[in-house]
């Protein structure tokens, strides 16, 4: 018997698979397809203080081995999440959920976390300081170590639950941001959020996305994600949720060898609605194939030696 247990910021997960925020809604659609309790946990849709429609459409574009999105943090706002989504999550998921929060100011991040802080269904906060699709917010917090640290401190002050900062890959040195977040009290880091990309429609000769640029995800970005997880693992001591282009149980092992304690599954949920389930079911076979007894023991294994 192989052991898929890992511990993320003191909270045990039966396996490291975490459907990534923005690809899993609040779990409703997927709960109709399979029992969500098989998941390590899932990270719900980035939630802001006020409801947001997001950017104008089109906000999806095809890429080689990936996709662009410029959704722009569409969500019903934290009040409706409290009144409608959390009660529903209680019905469809018996484990603790990861609450992804977005914001346009340090105060907003803190306010959203404060409102969700006492919700017993929430096990971790994932603070998105790296959304490439919102102007005057999100991303700039993720590209400046000082601002990233300020958001971390503000959020930490509002909750006793573990706080995981979600980092942007669109930076010269992700380890500087990572170190700043750790120093400011972050309990974990998740990376990578999407790269920034663009596609042009040759028929209209204009960008495919109304917003021009969008967040680039999918298998195409996996080598960049692995590199950044590897670099950050060498820099910090807090656990990492690694993600970017995960499609298979092999990919999960690859991220963990680079230093991830848990692994997000993102865009693949959208093209294969059973992706996360399939990956979890395939993990034991892949572990046996590569002589892995316990996933916990391979975290960071690609380093040294």
């Amino acid at each position: 018997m192989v052991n898929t247990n890992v511990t993320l910021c003191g909270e045990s997960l039966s396996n490291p698979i975490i459907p990534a925020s923005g690809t899993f809604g609040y779990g409703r659609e997927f709960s109709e397809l399979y029992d969500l309790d098989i998941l390590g946990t899932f990270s719900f849709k980035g939630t802001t203080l006020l409801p947001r429609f997001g950017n104008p459409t089109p906000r999806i574009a095809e890429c080689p081995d990936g996709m662009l999105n410029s959704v722009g943090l569409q969500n019903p706002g934290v009040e409706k999440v409290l009144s409608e989504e959390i009660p529903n999550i209680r019905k469809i998921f018996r484990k603790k959920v990861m609450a992804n929060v977005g914001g346009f100011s340090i105060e907003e991040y803190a306010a959203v976390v404060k409102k969700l802080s006492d919700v017993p269904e929430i096990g971790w906060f994932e603070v998105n300081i790296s959304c490439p699709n919102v102007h005057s917010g999100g991303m700039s917090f993720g590209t400046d170590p000082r601002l990233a640290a300020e958001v971390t401190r503000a959020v930490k002050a509002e909750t006793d639950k573990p706080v995981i900062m979600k980092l942007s890959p669109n930076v010269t040195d992700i380890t500087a941001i990572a170190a700043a977040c750790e120093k400011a009290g972050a309990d974990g880091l998740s990376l990578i959020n999407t790269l920034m990309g663009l596609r042009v429609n040759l028929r209209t000769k204009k960008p495919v996305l109304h917003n021009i640029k969008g967040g680039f995800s999918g298998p195409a970005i996996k080598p960049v994600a692995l590199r950044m997880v590897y670099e950050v693992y060498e820099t910090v001591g807090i656990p990492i949720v690694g993600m970017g282009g995960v499609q298979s149980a092999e990919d999960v092992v690859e991220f963990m060898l680079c230093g991830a304690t848990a692994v997000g599954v993102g865009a693949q949920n959208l093209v294969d609605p059973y992706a996360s389930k399939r990956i979890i079911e395939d993990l034991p076979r892949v572990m046996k194939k590569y002589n892995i007894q316990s996933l916990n023991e391979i975290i960071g294994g690609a380093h040294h030696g």
Partner: protein
Amino acid sequence: MKQGIFSVKSLERLTNDVYKLVLSGDTSEIRAAGQFINIKIDGLFLRRPISVCDYNDRTVTVIFKVVGKGTEILSKAAENTEFDILTGLGNGYSLENAGDRPLLVGGGVGVPPLYNLCKKLLEKGCRPQVVLGFNQKSEVFLEDEFKALGVPVTVTTVLGDYGKKGFVTDALPKDYTYFYTCGPEPMLKAVYHSTNTSGELSFEERMGCGFGACMGCSCKTKYGSFRICKQGPVLLKEAVLW
């Protein structure tokens, strides 16, 4: 929604760039005209959504125009090629408020979903009237199939080289109890403004997942934001913000 493997039963070229594809597989999840399927194509990341033209217990028929890589690959699929397909997506048209003389207005590749709708309305005992719009004669398809159902069909062409010259809105009948429409957005807008009953409009948008998870295809309606793939593609006239 159901995920299943479908195989190509037949592929037929209807016009220069429009193809009719019949796929065999488990169609049990398809519940309404106007729903769509989402096809995984090797070498492409996102699935390709295509509205259902017709279906029965064992096959689903779609009609598509070649507009990019995905549809180009589909247009060359050999018999028995297998595709991973999600079925039963979207809300589809509701038959409830059709009344006795519903009007069906389709434009270009918006025509196909109206075919199964027309059959369903006939089964229900309605007497549908059909108006189909195309750019020109060489692009006309499905006219004969609608006529074979025994319903009155008016075809319009923008160039006027076939049927009535003009847009579909130049050929709307006077009397109808409800309308159903599908086609390019400018046409939907014209139909919206030219009709005097309630009705249902089917919208198109670039989609990520097709089953409501990614928020890629949201649109604003009178009742808040809707996901075209989940709460659409069919919107009640009363929901549309025009």
